[in-house]
């Protein structure tokens, strides 16, 4: 019995000289892992156009029914995305989301990505609904905000080219 006690105390002693596992959150934050799935972001192309075409496939794939998408048609005077349509409403209910990443997989344009942000807290249910404005990333340095007015005929594909459509 004494032997076991010594063994236990030795472990305690060993850990006293180790670096602590815990960190002083929120003063110190640990960098998320590469494959971490945090809060979603809606991405843009380099020219600032939105990648999302409002197809609602993410909503269809979502097992928690957390996503709501409503589409509208682009025009060359008011262009949001390179294709024919864009998401005029895009909402994710973060209380429902289970961060499975199925929406990422479903997205034909890689518009929705579960990124690194994990600090999600709200005072009421309504503010758990993240709107398109909250989800969409900032306009890149050389891009323009949406909607953009473009030359007619610049974007003639119904859906932008799909990179690696797996």
């Amino acid at each position: 019995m004494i032997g076991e006690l010594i063994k236990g105390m030795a472990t305690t002693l060993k850990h006293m000289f180790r670096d602590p596992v815990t960190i002083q959150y929120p003063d110190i934050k640990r960098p998320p892992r590469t494959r971490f799935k945090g809060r979603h972001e809606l991405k843009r192309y380099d020219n600032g156009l939105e990648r999302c075409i409002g197809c609602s496939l993410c909503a269809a794939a979502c097992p928690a029914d957390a996503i709501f998408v409503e589409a509208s048609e682009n025009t060359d005077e008011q262009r949001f995305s390179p294709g024919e349509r864009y998401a005029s409403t895009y909402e994710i209910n973060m209380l429902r989301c289970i961060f499975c990443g199925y929406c990422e997989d479903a997205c034909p344009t890689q518009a929705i990505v579960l990124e690194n942000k994990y600090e999600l807290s709200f005072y009421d249910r309504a503010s758990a609904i993240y709107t398109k404005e909250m989800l969409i990333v900032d306009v890149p340095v050389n891009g323009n905000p949406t909607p953009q007015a473009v030359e007619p005929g610049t974007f003639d594909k119904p859906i932008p080219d799909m990179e690696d459509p797996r």
Partner: protein
Amino acid sequence: MSDQVNLTIDGVELSVPNGTLVVDAAKMIENPIPVFCYHPKMAPVGMCRMCLVEIGLPVRDRNSGEPVLNDDGTPQVSFRGLQTACTVQVSEGMVVRTTTEVVTKAREDVIEFLLTSHPLDCPICDKGGECPLQNLTMEHGKGTSRMDYSLKMKLDKHVPLGELIYLDRERCIQCGRCVRFQEEIVDDPVIRFHNRGRSLEIVTMSDPGFDSYWSGNTTDICPVGALTTADFRFGARPWELTPVATLSPHCPSGANMTFSTRREAKSGGRSVIKRIMPRQNEPVNEIWISDRDRFVHHFADAPDRLKKPLMRKNGQLVEVEWGEALDAVAGKLQQSGTAVAGLSGDRVSNEDMFLFQKLFRQGLKSHNIDLANRRLAGGDVVAKVGISQGSNLLNLGQGDAIVVIASDLHEEVPVWWLRVKQAAQRGAELVILNLRPTRLDECSRNVIHYQPGQAIATLRQLVNDAKVAAADADNSPIKAAADVIMQANNVVAFYGAEGLTYAETDAVARLLANLLLIKNEEAYAGRPNNGLIPVWPHNNTQGAWDMGIHPALEPGYKPAAKPGMRANEVYAAAQTGALKALFLLAADPIGDGLMAGRGQLDFLVVQELFLTETAAQADVVLPAQSWAEREGTFTSGERRVQRYYPAIQPVGEARPDWQILAQIGERVGLEKPAFAASLVFRDLAKAVPQYKGMDYRALARVEKQWPDVGGDDLYYGGNAYENRVGLGMQWPAAAESGAVDHFEVADVDSELPGKVVVVRTAALFTPGTLINHTELLQARMAQPTLIIQAADAAKLQLAQGEKVMVEVAGRGVETAVRLSEDTPEGVALLRGVPYQAGLTELKVMG
């Protein structure tokens, strides 16, 4: 030869009627053969090759004609390669193979070929999710592509074919269903193929584009997302929609439809109607609906719907709470004693009408109850000899006759026009009696155009001629028509009110009834597929008759002990002060030119969706729910009682009509309001003997329908909705259960009012309280037109295109003159103007 043919499909033996196509036979045993161009409602064309299967026929000995047997005694079958299952009819001993390697390979190849120039649009395509091409690619396609996407054909993706339908040229697979539908089914060949091969496109040849009352149906039967409706374009993905069964809010055919609803952020999270599609009901509208039915629903969400009760205070209509408004209505109605009247429109449900008459008859002890705009008589006649239970216009064909009098079915009830036309194409004889040429004339060999004022005389002649044996009479067209009718196996008769007064329509109904009763014991009336169909002006005019919205008839056609005032007497009494209070349910007599103004009325209450001209003059305006927000039943012109269901949340504080009426009823001493429309229906089914045995559950019964179109079907997906919530029930006409006496027909004199008489003709898109609030259809509305012969026009000094003011229903309407030699001499047709009965003198103003 027997009517049944035995064949084997993939080892399954079956027996189907002679003449069945292989593709349909396979569908019957749920072994669907994939198709694109074939549609069970249209003749096969064999254009897409998707339905290739191996078909073998038994080998017969050349000399004896006997089947050659194999050694084991089974018949020898010879296969001759692949054949299109959609064009081959079954034959005795046929063997069909659909699972062999050759067939699988053929399907793969056809899919691959179709996809060579098909865009990768599925994520944004409005058909995606219910798309036969998508479904069949998943089922029969290879799974990988050998095509370089950048080599695909680039074509226009946003081609409006008129303002209702858009074409995406890239998605079209050239199956020709749309072109064939327009040509073959509805006979409006306004779209066609243009160019060939890869550059083939669908073009519209009419001005305005796609000028057909049926254009929306092409978007249903298009097996891809090439044709879409303007209002559903990018509206929602099909799997996100909630289907809710409903009925046409206009059409007396009782067309079955389905709302597709979805919550919408733009509307603050409300459910909105995203689209309307047909719901299959083979005896009613099959799978077709007219564009009015498909697009009119936008009125339900119009921003100017009434949202709160209004009450006049210091001369102004101000919003008040329900309690105050209802107390005021009940109090005022009671104070007015029996000097009250209630007039109803014919678009509200049976439940509403039943409670409306109950409020007056039992609550206020007044029989002054009528339809606000009574156009067509004969409900009582229809109750006796109306089209029988179990009838289906689809069953009429060779050897049958259909009579149409004083009606332009194409403009009034397009669904009936279509079904009558198709019956004629199947061989039924049409007998048409009209004042002027109509579209149906081209399908008929017995067209009689009577002189203005001669409708009754002509029909009387027809009935008299029908009583005489075929041989011994002169050979006038009327006699010929009478013979056609008397020789027919089945006779269905439609009658309308074009150019007729109310009294005249009553005579028409009775004369037609007598025609159907001529053969006494073997009378047509009372047998299935026989009987009278009134071309009612609205969706529930039949219901109004059944519910006793009539000064002399109580629910169930029971004669009232003391008949009340008719609508025109009510309007007159309102002017003189003989009437104190008037209650209008879904009616706008001031806007329709029936009532000069509120006159000497003490109290006017209007229950409506919108602030109509009449409502603006009312003391109390009660906001009612539209048919999309509530449930109820309508009764069609074929006396089919059908249910419709609530699809969207009520607008503002609007309440269902029946509930408002019940709440007023409670305040004047009737019982407490029922909790649900179904309970009101239970009461009315007790009061109306004809509705015996009906309740909401019975009305919701369904049975399997053929052809199997719609629902989750893989290859007719997106064509129509399967009927899962009710086919409705027809109530029996008296003739079905016993002999009916011949009708007395009163003499109606028909003096011609002037040298040139005016006949108001119907147009599908005529202004009305509901349709006026549907923006999408405004461009299609019939413009006020005066159609007249050149000779008559010259006499009156009118020129083509000239704008003239003419008097319609007592008011001046500016109309454009159109010269047409189709118009009979001495007649001016008025189209796109408010309703006016009978013949009037042409009065050109100023």
